[in-house]
């Protein structure tokens, strides 16, 4: 049984505040993806490096990022490192947490993509006089990014949804944080959350659809 009278007018006046929150959510997600992809490429290189300590670092990162809750990773980025006297603002903590998670998952995506690229391609590059790094950069990397492009958009969607975990580290400027604050103020929980859900849905839908368009243009044979 659920009886509740929806009062949309009460909350629609708050819509601009929520849209401002959505912008912050996008900022965090986009930044965390850009840095995350860069880190994931580095992690992938470390895994290919053949050096045991470097491989261990990369493997540890991927294992922790993929096998612990994102909530825990974000919480540790704020309260965990603070016990060593390093303080990050909620925005930065959230960004670090999500980026850490992104990099781990993306590195694993890249590894899968690498497996799909025949080893002979590197050897072909090497036989043309390229160094190992050049062969990776000019031959393997573009193909790797192409194969893992759609999984990357998955991660982007996940990054957007992960921003909602920022409330645990005191973030109140992103979409979910703004929604929580308004909820405390007005108690119009269901209207506010319904609106937040629609905004989240629209953002992720736009991203997946545009990613598909970009992919169709970028990766035509």
């Amino acid at each position, binding site marked *: 049984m659920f009886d509740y009278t929806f009062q949309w007018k009460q909350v629609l006046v708050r819509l601009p505040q929520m849209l401002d929150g959505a912008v912050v959510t996008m900022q965090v997600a986009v930044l965390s993806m850009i840095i995350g992809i860069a880190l994931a490429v580095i992690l992938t290189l470390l895994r290919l490096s053949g050096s045991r300590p470097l491989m261990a670092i990369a493997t540890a990162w991927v294992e922790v990022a993929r096998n612990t809750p994102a909530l825990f990773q974000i919480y540790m980025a704020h309260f965990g490192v603070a016990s060593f006297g390093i303080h990050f603002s909620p925005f930065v903590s959230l960004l670090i947490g999500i980026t850490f998670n992104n990099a781990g998952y993306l590195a694993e995506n890249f590894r899968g993509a690498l497996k799909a690229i025949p080893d002979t391609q590197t050897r072909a590059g090497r036989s043309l006089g390229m160094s190992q790094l050049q062969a990776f950069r000019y031959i393997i990397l573009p193909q790797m990014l192409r194969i893992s492009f759609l999984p990357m958009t998955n991660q982007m969607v996940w990054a957007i949804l992960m921003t909602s975990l920022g409330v645990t580290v*005191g973030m*109140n400027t992103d979409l979910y944080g703004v929604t929580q*604050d308004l*909820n405390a103020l007005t108690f119009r929980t269901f209207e506010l959350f319904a609106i937040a859900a629609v905004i989240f849905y629209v953002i992720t839908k736009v991203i997946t659809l545009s990613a598909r368009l970009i992919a169709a243009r970028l990766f035509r044979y």
Partner: protein
Amino acid sequence: MKSIALSAGIIAASCVAGVAQADKLDDIIGSGTLRCAVVLDFPPMGMRDENNEPIGFDVDYCNDLAAALGVEAEIVETPFPERIPALMSNRVDVGVASTSDTLERAKTVGFSIPYFAFEMAVTANDETGIASFEDMKGHTVGAVAGTYEAIALEEYVNEWGDGTFRPYQTQADVFLALSQGQLDATVSTSTVAQANVQSGKFDGISVVGKAPFDIDYVALFAKRDEYGLINYLDLFVNQQVRTGRYDELYEKWVGGDVPQLTVPNAYR
């Protein structure tokens, strides 16, 4: 024979009508259980003892209410942000959850007369040198998201135009952040401040003074249109004070001077 059938019909009809007219108060008495939303992360109002059993002022208050109604009490642990969903989805009948009775919220839920009043205290990290509420200006301050003091403090920070406000999810997170130096000061109910400073779990913090906020009156809440229940709650709160039970519970959980629940020159 005909009259028997008729009276049977009337009795049956009145039974059906009786069921249809039963309000929440009847439902509670009929079901034999009173389900209270209580926040168990808010000592000394709600917390858990060593055996993980709920204890605290709000827990006792719910038990008293159930005893008055002649039913069993069921404590439903409800974090601050989930009080309204818990009520609207009918998981609880009444909120005994230290809920500030703001006019904004009263558009959504029905409040009883106040059953408790909080004073707000400033707790600061010792290294910051903050010694009063005014000293908080320009610093990074925080409180538990969604509480009366968080809303008031954020307004102050915006008004000062200087410093940062951070809402955390639990009282424990606020005091952890304060102890780590991520927050310079916080405003909380004086009861919570004393409990946390004395717990010894958080180093380097102390209560430095009062916050100039209005007294935070908190009320029981139920669905807005359950007049029968809300009436009962009003009388119950009144009786708790009249019989001395309020003083008794206050002494048991808080100690010190019992706050007045009425506003001078006002009805409630």
